[in-house]
Structures are given as structure tokens and as C-alpha cells.
């Protein structure tokens, strides 16, 4: 039921060409330079250490590796990570892929 509703909404938004991160729950990852990274539409932080940040989103998990990582600003809609970023990898949820 819920899934169907979501699909309908995405159909409408596709028609109106509304970006995905606005209409749905898909995260938007913006990297500015190599030192700053902003993730919008995130769910929560799974792990947070000096060299490793694991951010949970609605469609998967984003891992950030680096040094001296700081959570510069944090609110319910966006998180800003600052520090020397070395690599980013993404783990997609299995159920999302099936859909």
C-alpha cells in the first residue's frame, strides 16, 4: 500500500521533472573540494570515529574514510562532514534493488 503510493508520487514528480532528492527520500551527496562533504536526506549516523563516518540513508549506507573527520554542522535534514576525505563507498540496500 505504502509502496504503491510512493510510486504514484514518483510518477507525478517525473512528469513535473522535480528532482529526486526533493520529491523522494533519496539522499544527495555534495563534495566540495576534497575536504567537505554534505549529505542531505539522511536517516542517521551509524558509526562516528576520527577516521571513519558511516551515514545511514533511506536507500543505503554511505561510508566515508579519511583523517580528522568532524561533523561541522548537523540538523535533521543535512549533515556536513569536514576533514581530509580519502574515499567514499556506498552500500545499497538489497530490498531497494529488487524494486
Amino acid at each position, binding site marked *: 500500500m505504502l509502496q504503491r503510493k510512493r510510486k504514484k508520487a514518483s510518477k507525478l514528480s517525473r512528469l513535473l521533472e522535480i528532482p529526486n532528492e526533493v520529491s523522494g527520500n533519496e539522499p544527495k551527496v555534495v563534495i566540495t573540494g576534497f575536504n567537505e562533504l554534505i549529505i542531505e536526506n539522511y536517516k542517521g549516523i551509524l558509526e562516528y570515529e576520527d577516521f571513519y563516518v558511516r551515514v545511514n540513508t533511506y536507500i543505503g549506507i554511505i561510508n566515508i574514510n579519511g583523517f580528522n573527520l568532524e561533523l*561541522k554542522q548537523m*540538523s535533521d535534514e543535512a549533515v556536513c562532514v569536514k576533514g581530509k576525505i580519502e574515499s567514499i563507498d556506498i552500500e545499497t540496500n538489497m530490498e531497494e534493488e529488487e524494486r
Partner: protein
Amino acid sequence: MVVKVLFYYIAGYIRITVEGYFIERFINICTQKNILLWNTKTIGTTIMKTNISISDFRKLHVIAKKTKCRIKIKEKKGLPFFFERYKKRKILAILLVILIATMIIISNFVWNIQIECDGEINKDEIQAILEKNGLKIGALKEELDTSKIARSIRYEREDIAWVGVSFKGTNAIVELIKAEQKPEIIQENEYCSIISDKEGIITKINVQNGTAAVKVGDLIKNGTTLVNGWLQGKYTGIRYVHAMADIEAKVWYSQKRRVYKTQNIEVSTGRQEKKYGLKLNNFEINFYKTLSKFENYDTIIETKKIKLFSDFYIPIELKTIQNYEKEKQMVTYTLEELKENNISQMEKEIEQEIGQKENIVNKQINFNEQDTYVDIEIIYEVIESIGTKEKIVF
């Protein structure tokens, strides 16, 4: 979010350390409850430093209990904490109030009068007029009527075209614009004759209207009538006219000077000393005790009003006294040196008097050497157009 952080600086924020095994959970709960955390940093795996606002800090102990974290306050920042620190210092607050009160009281008076004018208007005379009308140092600003003062200046002085009086801070600015003095113009239909305004010898006279009273080669003095303002016919009698003529005359300008061969000259030795003092109306405080160590010296006293801002003068003056040491010397000059020193200076003075250099015809320098002094005379011969019109009064 930047605006929010800036707002929290004004509202006050706290830097805390959170210690526990479930820091990530703690962060997630905070974001869920709309608590803003910023500048988060971990130290090791169990300790986290972060900033949080005061109002959000009160909600924090519930979350801390839930996640089994310990919270410690590290720093308190922002304006509320800043004021809190100075609350206990009562004397400082009282002094601050007194300072502000005196500033307000002082700003009601005029402490400086600035007269701005172009040209050579005597500032002391203007100041005297201003003082008569109540605008003086120490006057209450509210009691002064600027337009009335401006009117009274214009009433008393005819050579001023426009006066503006305005206050800027504790500074009264009086702006003056000088009126151009117009020569008395004699109308074309009025009768007049031409008289001389200089001494000289006539070189050219060309009468268009009227009767010439002098001829070429005549020696004229100041006030001699050059052209009479009437025509005389055999049968018509005397008919008065508006005299017009081109008259040129050779005019001499001369300058004499007696220069002594041995002169007493005071030469500055280059040594100087500076002294300071404060002046409050008529009350003076000097920061020095001793008299000057020089025997012969020139003194320059400068007083400067102290101002806080560009136009906020306060009634205290800073006085600087500069003493320049001097030495008396007897100098004997030769004739050549005297000539060199004086002639160019005299020439400049004469040329300033003449104005137009093209008209100079001849230049003569005379010397008369005596035992102790030399007389120098410089004569310039200049051809100038002369004559001013004067109304005929019946």
C-alpha cells in the same frame, strides 16, 4: 544553518564533551529531536566534543540518561555569559553610566567654532560678531538660532554673499562665501569725465567722446583730469557727454632699500625641545617643571582641541610648546652678496605690484655704496592704460 549558528552566538552556547559507548545513538536522537549540534569532533572512540545552545542543553540530560553518556561542560560562550561575568562589577557599571551621562551632557554644548571661508575675510572679526550673538565656546546648542546668527552676520558685513551656520557634534561650522566687490558702474547715459589714478607721463591719448585736457608728454599726478566730459562748440555752447578714451601712460614703480654691511643675525642651531601641557578653559596643567635650558630661543605654542570622533570635540586642549635654540652672529657682507640677496627679492615684490609683466618697458637698478651701508633702488618703467571714470556733479 550559518544564520542559526550566528544566532546561537548571540543567544549563548556551550561546548560540551560527551563520553560513552553509544555516541552515534546520542547524535541520532539529538537530530531526531531537532537539536542542532555543530563542530563535532571525536577524541578516541568514546569521547566527543560538540557545541550546543543553552535551551537545547536543558533537554540533553534525558538523552544522556537513555544512551548512558556522561556530559561535561567545557566552555561557555556567547553574549549572555559575557554579561554574566560583568554583573558583579558594580563600580565599573556605575563609571560606565557616569561616562555616558557626561558624554550626553557635553554633547549639548559647542566646544569648537570652525570658520570656513575662501579669500581674505578676517576670522577674528567674524568671531567677534558670532560672540555678540551668543555663539561662543561653551554655549548651549539648543539656545542658539542658527538662521538668526547667519542673518546678523550678513547684516553687519557687506562683503559676504552667503553665510551658513550648522552644528556637527560639538563643532559649530560657519561657512562664508565672499561677495565679489563690484566696481561702481556709471551708466552710458550719465555724464562723466576721466581722471588719472596713477602718476606718470602720457604716451598716448585717443579720445572718442569728450574733450582732452592733457596731451602726449604731459606729466600727470594722481587725480589729474585727463578727459573732460563735455564738448564745446562755437554756436552750441557746452554740451555734457559720457567721456570715453584710450589713454596710455608711462608709469614708474620703484623700491628703495637700505642694507647694512654688518648685520646681527640670529641663526638657529638646530637644537630644540618639546614640552606638553593640558588646558581646560583658563585652567592649565603643565607637564614640565623646569624652564628652558636654552638662553636664546624662539617659542612656538600650539594648542589643539582634543576630539573623540571626527566632530565630537571636548573642552580640553592639548598644548605643545616647542623651543628652538638660536645664536646671535655678526655677519659682514660684501657688496656682491648684498646685491644677490636683495635684488631678486625686491624685483619679485615690484612685479607682484605691477601684475602684468608684458608691459614692462625698462628696468633700472641703482646703487649707492657708503662706508657702512648700501642703498639699492630699483625702478621699473611700465606702460599702462590708466584712467577711471568719475561722475560729473552739477
